[in-house]
């Protein structure tokens, strides 16, 4: 296998056995990025010089006797994580020239392990989108078929990992933004329990829903990254005191006795039959390994999308107020007065989808509408949480499709925001509840597009999800398939 196809485990072994150095590995991937990124547009910034310097430093640490599992291994960050000295755009014109004075906790932690940052990854603007088409810097293309979207908002992360530009990447998930692109690009991604991964330095979209996590080519690789990413952070008040854990420890536990729940609500109208069949086959594989399968109800799941599109825009309308043209953002030319400065800077700096959500969020928080929208949505959120609580009294994991369809063509849903929002119909309830969930490849369509299966667990059952996914991946080939780079339009 070539360097760009190796898992994190294999890369560590190669570095350990001195079969290649971090500088060689980094150089090989930088060359691959230079060759393929013009087509994929997954990287917004490639930090070649810094990466080679970091790789040399990692090689020196290894030569000095260190042997960290991630030491010298390349990684890339979704451009939502602040990186000191390297611009952080969040996919927006608003932050086109923003260079953060500080690094996100996640970035710091991975760097401290000696991981080599190759650059920053494309994303939907301010993580608002499900196709990566809202990025100010242009859409990302799906490595399996370049006429298709990679999903979003962590589309650059999923596409880069799928295309072998980087072995693992960070992403964030507010309503499915790790899992949906992971499914559409055929990679493995986990949205940890809310509070596992520090949000400090991760540009906020909807603070009560946002959660960072890894995307990689296997559950084991995700576990390796999560071992470092998950930690209590005193700089994030919502970080959980027991956030840290060893996610590798239970990875190999057999699935005998595992109780799997299958929610009827996830297999109704709108679900692509090929996706349904692949996920069913995935569930059967788990049954074959000794899991018991039963039906569960999540009766409030149908309200998840509407609830989300009240709460997330409400928080976003406030979170994005700091981008006001006064300090580090885009500023309009020659403003007439203060109001003009605000209005034009924000109109010019934000794209249409971001403006739409700010307007919706402002509306639902306004005097006279708050009770009807925001407060009501919070009540429904409690009911959704309650659904999961009841379900997890009966089962250990809940399994369903990650997305209703495989990757769709670029431009297909741009005219219809609601159709786009429905791409996250199975992923959003998880964020509203704050529970962990992951997506892993479970098959392909006849057209050669990857299909994702979603595992959902109770609070802090992240390790169980990784365990189930790992056992599944030991017996199935889906996660090892490499993209075909079908070109042309859909």
């Amino acid at each position, binding site marked *: 296998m070539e360097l760009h196809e190796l898992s994190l485990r294999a890369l560590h072994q190669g570095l350990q056995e001195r079969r290649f150095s971090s500088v060689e590995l980094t150089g090989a991937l930088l060359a691959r990025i230079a060759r393929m990124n013009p087509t994929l547009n997954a990287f917004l910034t490639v930090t070649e010089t810094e990466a080679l310097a970091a790789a040399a430093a990692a090689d020196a640490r290894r030569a000095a006797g260190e042997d960290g599992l991630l030491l010298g291994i390349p990684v890339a960050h979704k451009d939502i*994580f*602040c990186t000191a000295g390297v611009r*952080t755009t*969040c996919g927006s014109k608003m*932050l086109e020239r*923003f260079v*953060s*004075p*500080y690094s*996100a906790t996640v970035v710091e932690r991975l760097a401290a392990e000696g991981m080599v940052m190759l650059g920053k990854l494309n994303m939907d603007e301010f993580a608002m989108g499900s196709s990566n088409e809202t990025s100010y810097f242009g859409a990302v293309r799906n490595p399996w078929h370049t006429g298709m979207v990679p999903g979003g908002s962590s589309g650059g992360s999923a596409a880069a990992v799928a295309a072998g530009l980087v072995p693992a990447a960070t992403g964030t998930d507010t309503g499915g933004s790790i899992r949906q692109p992971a499914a559409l690009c055929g990679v493995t991604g986990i949205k940890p329990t809310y509070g596992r991964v520090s*949000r*400090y*330095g*991760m*540009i*906020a979209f*909807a*603070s*009560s829903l946002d959660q960072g996590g890894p995307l990689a080519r296997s559950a084991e690789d995700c576990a390796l990254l999560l071992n470092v990413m998950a930690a209590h952070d*005193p*700089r*994030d*008040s*919502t970080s959980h005191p027991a956030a840290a854990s060893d996610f590798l420890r239970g990875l190999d536990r057999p699935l005998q006795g595992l109780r799997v729940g299958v929610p009827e609500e996830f297999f109704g109208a709108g679900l692509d039959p090929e996706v349904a069949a692949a996920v069913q086959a995935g569930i059967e594989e788990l049954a074959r390994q000794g899991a018991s399968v039963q039906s569960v109800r999540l009766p409030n799941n149908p309200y998840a999308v509407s609830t989300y599109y009240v709460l997330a825009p*409400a*928080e976003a*309308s*406030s979170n*994005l*107020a*700091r*981008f*006001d043209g*006064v*300090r*580090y953002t885009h500023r309009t030319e020659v403003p007439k007065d*203060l109001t003009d400065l*605000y209005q034009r800077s924000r109109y010019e700096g934000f794209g249409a989808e971001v403006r739409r959500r700010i307007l919706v969020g*402002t509306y639902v*928080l*306004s*005097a006279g509408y*708050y009770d009807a929208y*925001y407060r009501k949505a919070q009540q429904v959120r409690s009911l959704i949480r309650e659904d999961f609580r009841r379900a997890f009294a009966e089962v250990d994991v809940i399994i369903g499709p990650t997305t209703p369809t495989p990757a769709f063509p670029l431009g297909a849903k741009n005219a219809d925001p609601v159709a786009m929002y429905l791409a996250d119909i199975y992923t959003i309830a998880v964020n509203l509840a704050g529970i962990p969930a992951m997506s892993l490849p479970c098959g392909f369509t006849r057209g050669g597009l990857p299909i994702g299966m979603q595992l959902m667990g109770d609070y802090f059952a992240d390790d169980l999800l990784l365990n189930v996914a790992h056992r599944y991946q030991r017996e199935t080939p889906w996660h090892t398939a490499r993209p075909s780079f079908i070109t042309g339009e859909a």
Partner: protein
Amino acid sequence: MGWEVVIGLEVHAQLNTATKIFCGCSTTFGAEPNSHTCPVCLAMPGALPVLNEAAVDKAIALGLAIGAELNRQSVFARKNYFYPDLPKGYQISQYELPVVGKGTLTISLTDGTEKVVGVTRAHLEEDAGKSLHEAFVDQSGIDLNRAGTPLLEIVSEPDMRSPAEAVAYLKKLHALVRYLDICDGNMQEGSFRCDANVSLRRPGAPLGTRAEIKNLNSFRFLEKALEYEIARQRDILERGGCIVQETRLYDAGRGETRSMRSKEEANDYRYFPDPDLLPLVLDPARIARVRGTLPELPDIKRARFMRQYALPAYDAGVLTMSRVLADYYEQVAVGVDSKLAANWVMGELLGALNKAGIEIETCPVSAEKLRLLVQRIEDQTISGKIAKEIFEDLFHSGGEVDAIIEKRGLRQITDTGAIAALVDGIVAAHPQQVADFRAGKDKLLGFFVGQVMKASKGKANPDQVNTILLERLRKE
């Protein structure tokens, strides 16, 4: 039929924590612009707030001191509005659930009665930065050093019925926050400022439409602004007009209030719970711990002063206005007459401080020196008049009481022979006045006392001078 004035105050007390409420930056006043800032208080993308627990303890202290309900769970909320010195585009405050609930503050009125004023709530919030319009041409500067400074907003019930009551309430609260050491009370620097809500109504009628006067930063401005605003509203109402609900600013230069914005122009702040902060939970052990650190509160101290030092209510009230002053008095009163000590602290000391424009905290005369000075009056080493001269010296040039007395030869003359010699000299020098006195002009006694005191350079014991003078003058 007259008008009843209804006043409620919203006081912003800057809590004197070492660091800001949601980050570790210093709260020191007067630093180089934007030098006390970090990603959190600059509202850099991705930065998150972490609550300063010291600010919470100070809010608890205030709550306990006004006998308020402390909410076991309170919630931080975002108050959303755009302004350049508000870097996040929202202020973190508390809205539906404040940390401190209903309490009371008792004020003393000039007629000697007391009145209980209700406190509706007190909540924690962060201050904004400052816009600087003077230093730049066609531009404004933004200084975010103050952004994130902890504030406790203390909201009263509309219980006050006159500007005097409002001032009494504000003074009482001002003294209280300084007692509790939760706020430095510096009104010039804006550490303690208030907004006043005022309306008029016919007695017994429902509340009238109110105007809010913003940012009053002295007791005098509060009084003047209220007086102006009451006259303005009375004038409108008596001409049959209506009061517009609005926010007004007090222009101290012109002594008037003027409209800033009407209710229609008011912001819709779109409050909602801040998802970056967990609800603030107060456990009973924490409340008990703060209770254990509370100092003796002003009302209790005042009662004790009246009892322990046999002081009139007025004196006890003045001396307990601040904890430092009360402590000072108690040090002066050790082993000397407590009323004489009170007179000296309230008279000479406060007068000199006031004249020099300095606070008791930085008083140049230590309590021990003043105590010794009072003691020297009591033991007749010096007269009260000489003591005042020595006090002036101590205040302006420093030094030690006894050393000044010795060096300048100010020790009181109590030797009867010496005083008699002086008296005899004066009597001999003024035969006409002696004759007049003996003829019945009693008033001339003052003249003779004055002459003797002058001859002694003020050092003769006045009682002895009196006695000996009368003895000599009445002798035929």
